[in-house]
């Protein structure tokens, strides 16, 4: 289960709702990175004290493992995987390596 795995990288769309707090996005991105995924696209929208985050992620590890780790974060309310690509067009978009 390491990043050297020969498995091909797969793309996933993941939506996350979390509490708007100091370092919220850093906390999310840190987990994504350390658990072996790369952020291909990211869109964030704030709604009151909530953040709605849409991520397109690439990685070779099981996405369920990342989902379980994100759900452990105290300020994460919900994590969902979507089959179809999320609509990014009208949202602020960040590209990240």
């Amino acid at each position: 289960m390491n990043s050297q795995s020969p498995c091909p990288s797969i793309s996933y769309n993941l939506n996350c709702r979390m509490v708007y707090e100091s370092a919220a996005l850093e906390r999310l991105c840190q987990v994504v990175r350390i658990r072996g995924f790369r952020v291909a696209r990211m869109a964030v929208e704030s709604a009151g004290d909530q953040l709605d985050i849409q991520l397109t992620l690439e990685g070779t590890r099981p996405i369920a493992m990342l989902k379980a780790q994100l759900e452990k974060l105290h300020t994460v309310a919900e994590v969902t995987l979507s089959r179809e690509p999320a609509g990014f067009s009208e949202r602020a978009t960040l590209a990240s390596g």
Partner: protein
Amino acid sequence: MNGAEQILDAFHRYHIDTVFGYPGGCIMPLYDALIDDVSVEHVLCRHEQGCALAADGYARASGRLGVCIATSGPGATNLITGVANAHRDSIPMLVITGQVPAGLIGTDAFQETDVLGMTLGIVKHSYLVTSASEISGVMDEAIRLAVSGRPGPVWIDIPKDVLLQKTPARSAAESSPESSTPEDLGEAVAMLQAARRPLLYSGGGISLAHCEASFRRFAEASALPAVVTLKGIGNAGKHNPNNLGMLGMHGSRAANRAVEECDLLVVIGARLDDRATGRLESFAPNARVIHIDADTAEINKLRQAELSLRGELGRILDGLSAALSARPLMIDEWRHQCRQWHTTGGFSAADNDEPLSSITGPAFVRQLSRITSDDTVIACDVGQHQMWVAQHYEFDHPRHHLTSGGLGAMGFGLPAAIGAQFADRRSTVINVTGDGSLMMNAQELATIRRYRLPVKIIVMDNQCLGMVRQQQELFYNNRESQINLDDNPDFVAMARAFDIPGLHIERTDQIRRGIETILAFDGPMLLHVAISREENVWPIVKPGASNLEMIDESQTISRTTKEQTA
């Protein structure tokens, strides 16, 4: 009430009476408030890493929340190793640091560091408090988070001006216990009944969940052959005839063989760490898995479980015990086989009867185990001595074995022993350390002196970084690199400088007298044990290899002989 006083108010509400800390500029308001508070004992360590590791040791030994305090900048950065250690081993810890005043954050102010940013990966959760009105609520939530579910460290960073802000006192919020998901005990019982070679695999989650008694009842009701991880040592008790001891890299052949042969692995409170499993692809190749854990994210993380039970471990184990008591498992042949493996492939280290011979690590630890009482707390450091203790000391309870499992942090042992001694001032606490590890936090000898703690320190001195030397010998063609410590200080003289008497031994016939002397001494004492530089921990699995590829001393000797012959 100002922000600092609200912190103390939360300490009172949660019956926190011992904290480990080190003052400095931005945390001064809290230290000022501490002066007038007689209900909280503040233990001044000599380095913030010592504070965090002492809080960790306190939590491990007592089962309570460990609390450490430091200032901004270097105070916070010095805490990091200790907090990471608690995170890796799921130790409940509350960390409080001062921060530069809110208006100066982000200006590169004196002793400013981005504590929130740099600690994200080593905490269960963290806060940067921006108003004194938040402190009470944050303290409630942080304490609840640290101790609930899978425990862990929670860090609260508070700017100095917020600590000084006045705000009305606020009553405690009621916290509700974390709900557990429904579990299918019936299916687990059916899988156990159907299995011919079931094996129990337990880890540190047993004591973290405070379910030691339920685990013992389950182990007794099921009479399953049992293996433990490093952190699970003591779970099954020293008198359980089905206990095969530790598995993994330095586990016994018997334990690893049982894992290889089992057809059902019942994993409880363990995370299938690589030091335990070796190469995953060949781990328990014939087994179905039942995984029981408080942390959902551990289920299927590394090994797919056929059945997972998530929730309160004690309740699950009690349910399983009741079912198995009514209908015991018919696995006598398998039990017999495992016991036979344990007899022939357990940890064996013949006591050396030659009185003038030099001391070996295993022989020393076996004597230590025989001489000390069952309730002695052993706080290990990291290295060869740590593995000898894990292999040869017979623990009767997991809280008596304090060891840095996940992080493997040298320097853990001495401050952890200090914490354990504060957890119970009457208990016998022994720090078993190495010459490398002791020097990582030797400044804490001053803490022992200050509080006159009767901690016993046993230094197993092989004049080198033994575990690194061993791996260089075995896996790097004996090319030794930067492991030599033959210029160590005179440890007995060093202890004496801290008003701690010491004793040196080097021969087998001195072991018993040495151990009995330090145990009988009324106060702290150091025992310096000279051991061979060349001694290795056996058996060993090469990092990344399968547990089935264990190497023991005889294989190495035969390999060396072949090489010499060639």
